[in-house]
């Protein structure tokens, strides 16, 4: 495949009326292959149309170049025909004359008869032969856009550029036109770039979706490959397994952009008070039963008690939102899966390594694996049954939902599957999904099951859509669940705030550990600001009469506080590092000792515990051993990695994380 269009380091500035410049786009690099359909998506004012106009040559870049077949685009021309948003038909010409005008201008060397045939052919293509003698004003919006498309296609452009072509149309017309356009593109192997606001339209039509960040200085925030085979049908495409993950990916991106914009719109002054460097904090969480300490710390005033006057709990819909919030500094700290600090420190999130510190383990346990009801109906009640069922059912791929690659759910699920002879990458496919979407996917059958924290397992069981197959108590009882994480440079800049935050949450954890408070906590978390579901679905432990996975050992399911429970543990984070490396999420860091030293903020925890008079919770836990009784020796992680029976080709590499530095505000 050759690149038809090559956009290199494109930049566009607009002079402002009051002097100065508005930078609309910067650093845009994009290659468009022949026959590809590309969508540009982003919020209003992100420069999508500007980018399209520069490809069209209607607007010239202030930096960088657009190459079409190796030649710089300097002026517009019929080889890169545009379908305009408002159709741009000439109202004094009939439908046929509008198309003929384009054909006659662009192909004067063709005979008159051949040109007329071309016009008729394209009138027919868009089904407008009947309306050929009508004026545009006599046509509906959908028909006008069909004329516009016919006009564009009739002159055989190398590149078709569409600027929100269906934006002004009603849903039904839009759907029909999308199918028509798709069919035409397939038949004629057109190369097209389309600007759109419509997520579904982008997924339906595109081979790749280019997502642009907010202006000023918009750039490409991500490019999604749409792996749905063609020909596609509007009504069946949404049953393709990739459809909703692509869709949610785009929506996540757009929401993220919106959140960043809102965050930028607010004033951000660091408020120092009570001897703390910063008392106004944005703390990220996602709605799970394990977020109870955050909610309690807010509701019971533990934050204010420790001087944090202005704490704002920011509910994210996925862990990815938490990760991005830390990356772009819109969050001060967050509750995160216990694998996240090492994963981000090692650069697992895709950017340069971002050192994250954790001074507190907020919760342990609370996770389960739930399989869909339909599997239980076919007799799958144990992992052996599932393995046998996988062997006899070829429907590829078998998807199991996880919430994040660096979450304990992923690592425990993989460990458990692998120990039971199921390859977590080859026999099944683990799909990252936002927690709130899991149940819906389980219902519609696009996933076999999921591994996630409460309340989602209990909800699936109580609504009859899923059956718990194994709880984490049976995989690794007492595994770290959620931890407090913040950027290392943040922790360096606000050390006393960090301690105060740890104290507030540790005290909240102690509150949460008391079974007498659980009913109150369920009530609190059922609020719309947190989980927004009925309080009797939010449980922290097995109830009398519960069977199976909810109460395998009669232990409390969620552990929030206790001896050795909350102190960040280097050996646990090391185990996590080995597992992340085992499944090739990150290379195993050769400098793992340095990384663990930096990630585990034991000093902050100890100070916090001491100041609260809780020194007794601070001692080290015993060694790590999971259900398969394979011992983990923290002295020899690489030996452990080589020993495990099933693993990907992992690599070992030095991960440079630089010197600890404080953020400069």
């Amino acid at each position, binding site marked *: 495949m050759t690149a038809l269009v090559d956009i290199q380091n494109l930049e566009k500035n607009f002079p402002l009326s009051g002097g100065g410049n508005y930078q609309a786009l910067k650093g845009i690099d994009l290659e468009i292959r022949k026959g590809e359909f590309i969508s540009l998506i982003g919020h209003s004012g992100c420069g999508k149309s500007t980018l399209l106009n520069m490809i*069209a040559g*209607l607007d010239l870049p202030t930096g960088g170049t657009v190459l079409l077949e190796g030649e710089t685009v300097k*002026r*517009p*021309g*019929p080889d*890169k*025909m*545009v379908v*305009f948003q*408002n159709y*741009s038909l*000439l*109202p*004094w*010409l009939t439908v046929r004359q509008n198309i003929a*005008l*384009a054909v006659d*201008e*662009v192909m004067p060397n063709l005979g008159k008869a051949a040109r007329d045939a071309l016009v008729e052919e394209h009138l027919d293509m868009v089904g407008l032969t009947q309306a050929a003698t009508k004026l545009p*004003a006599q046509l509906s919006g959908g028909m006008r856009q069909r004329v516009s498309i016919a006009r564009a296609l009739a*002159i055989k452009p190398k590149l078709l550029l569409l600027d929100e072509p269906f934006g002004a149309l009603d849903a039904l017309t839009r759907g029909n036109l999308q199918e028509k356009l798709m069919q035409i593109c397939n038949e004629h192997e057109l190369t097209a770039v389309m600007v759109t606001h419509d997520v579904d339209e982008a997924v339906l039509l595109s081979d790749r979706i280019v997502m642009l960040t907010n202006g000023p200085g918009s750039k490409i925030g991500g490019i999604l490959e749409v792996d749905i085979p063609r020909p596609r049908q509007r009504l069946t495409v949404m049953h393709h397994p990739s459809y909703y993950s692509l869709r949610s990916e785009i929506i996540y991106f757009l929401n993220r952009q919106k959140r960043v914009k809102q965050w930028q719109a607010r004033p951000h002054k660091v408020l120092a008070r009570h001897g703390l460097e910063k008392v106004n904090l944005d703390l990220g969480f996602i709605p799970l039963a394990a977020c109870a300490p955050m909610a309690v710390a807010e509701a019971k005033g533990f934050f204010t008690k420790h001087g944090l006057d202005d704490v704002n709990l920011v509910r994210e819909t996925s862990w990815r939102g938490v990760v991005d919030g830390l990356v772009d500094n819109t969050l001060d700290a967050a509750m995160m899966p216990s694998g996240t600090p090492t994963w981000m420190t090692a650069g697992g999130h895709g950017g340069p390594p971002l050192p994250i510190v954790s001074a507190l383990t907020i919760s342990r346990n609370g996770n389960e694996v739930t399989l869909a009801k339909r599997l239980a109906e076919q007799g799958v009640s144990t992992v052996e049954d599932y393995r046998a069922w996988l062997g006899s059912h070829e429907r590829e791929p078998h998807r199991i939902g996880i919430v994040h690659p660096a979450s304990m759910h992923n690592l425990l699920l993989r460990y458990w599957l692998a120990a039971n002879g199921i390859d977590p990458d080859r026999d099944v496919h683990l799909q990252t999904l936002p927690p709130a979407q899991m149940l819906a996917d389980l219902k519609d059958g696009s996933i076999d099951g999921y591994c996630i924290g409460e309340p989602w397992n209990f909800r699936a069981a109580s609504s009859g859509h899923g059956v718990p197959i194994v709880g984490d108590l049976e995989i690794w009882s007492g595994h770290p669940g959620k931890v407090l994480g913040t950027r290392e440079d943040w922790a360096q800049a606000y050390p006393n705030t960090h301690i105060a935050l740890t104290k507030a949450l540790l005290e909240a954890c102690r509150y949460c550990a008391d079974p007498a408070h659980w009913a109150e906590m369920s009530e609190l978390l059922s609020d719309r600001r947190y989980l927004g579901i009925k309080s009797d679905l939010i449980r922290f432990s097995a109830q009398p009469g519960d069977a199976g996975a909810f109460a395998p050992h009669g232990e409390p399911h969620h552990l929030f506080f206790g001896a050795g429970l909350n102190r960040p543990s280097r050996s646990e984070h090391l185990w996590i590092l080995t597992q992340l490396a085992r499944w090739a999420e990150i290379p195993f860091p050769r400098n793992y000792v340095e990384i663990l030293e930096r990630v585990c903020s034991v000093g902050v925890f100890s100070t916090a515990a001491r100041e609260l008079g809780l020194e007794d919770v601070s001692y080290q836990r015993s060694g790590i051993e999971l259900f398969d009784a394979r011992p983990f020796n923290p002295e020899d992680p690489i030996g452990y990695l080589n020993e495990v029976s099933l693993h990907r080709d992992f690599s070992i590499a030095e991960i440079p994380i630089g010197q600890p530095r404080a953020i400069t505000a």
Partner: protein
Amino acid sequence: MTITPQAPTSSPSGPLLWWKRHSKVIVPPILGIFGFLLAWQLSASLGLTRLPGPLSLFTEERTRDLLLYPFYDRGGLDKGLFWQTMASLGRVAQGYFLAAVVGIGAGIAVGLNKTLNRAFDPLFQFLRMVAPLAWVPIALVIFQKNQPAAIFVIFITAVWPILINTAEGVRQIPQDYHNVALVLQMSKKTFFTKVLIPSALPYIFTGLRISIGLAWLAIIAAEIVMSGIVGIGFFIWDAYQQNYVSDILLAVLWIGGIGLLLDRLMAWIQSRISPGQ
């Protein structure tokens, strides 16, 4: 105006129904005009003003002849009102045609070219504020003769609205149409005939319609000061000199009627040429 419908509808109460529906539109203007004429006639009869009343059109014998025989021609300046009007209209036609050609041409040039626009716009804005009467002596100085001077006054009065509206029409061509022309790499000629003219046409016609009224106003003014020519303007002046006031009233009636007709004519052409815009 038809007061009764030409074909009675199937309903027997047709004419009555029609009257019911339309009486509100028809009665007030009739009453208004009639009232105005009555008040005028009364004030004239009672000697409140020296202006003769509307009935003088019939009571004065000379005026009645003029009213009833508009087509007589006794040679020289002694012609019926129809011929007087036609002579004036002839001048208007020449000056107006010239104004249309120059106005549209210059308007397009100014509308397309920003530099030209900047160069000439202040001049145009200034010149268009000069009253038609003020041009008359200048025109006489330039041309030395009544006929070309009259045409010039028409021209210079009528050209500005055409020019300014045409330029505006060209500037108002939607960017979309420009983009279409750019993307298709349209030739200058195609752009001119297929995009520019059709797009600016409504503006051009607005200009033309305003100008026809102005041209008609100007010709009267011009002729009044140009002695010894056939034309409705000089006819008024002549009548005034001889104190034939009722003749003046009749001529004014003609002028108003012709002006109205001209405006309707332009509106009609406009609706025919650019329908729906």
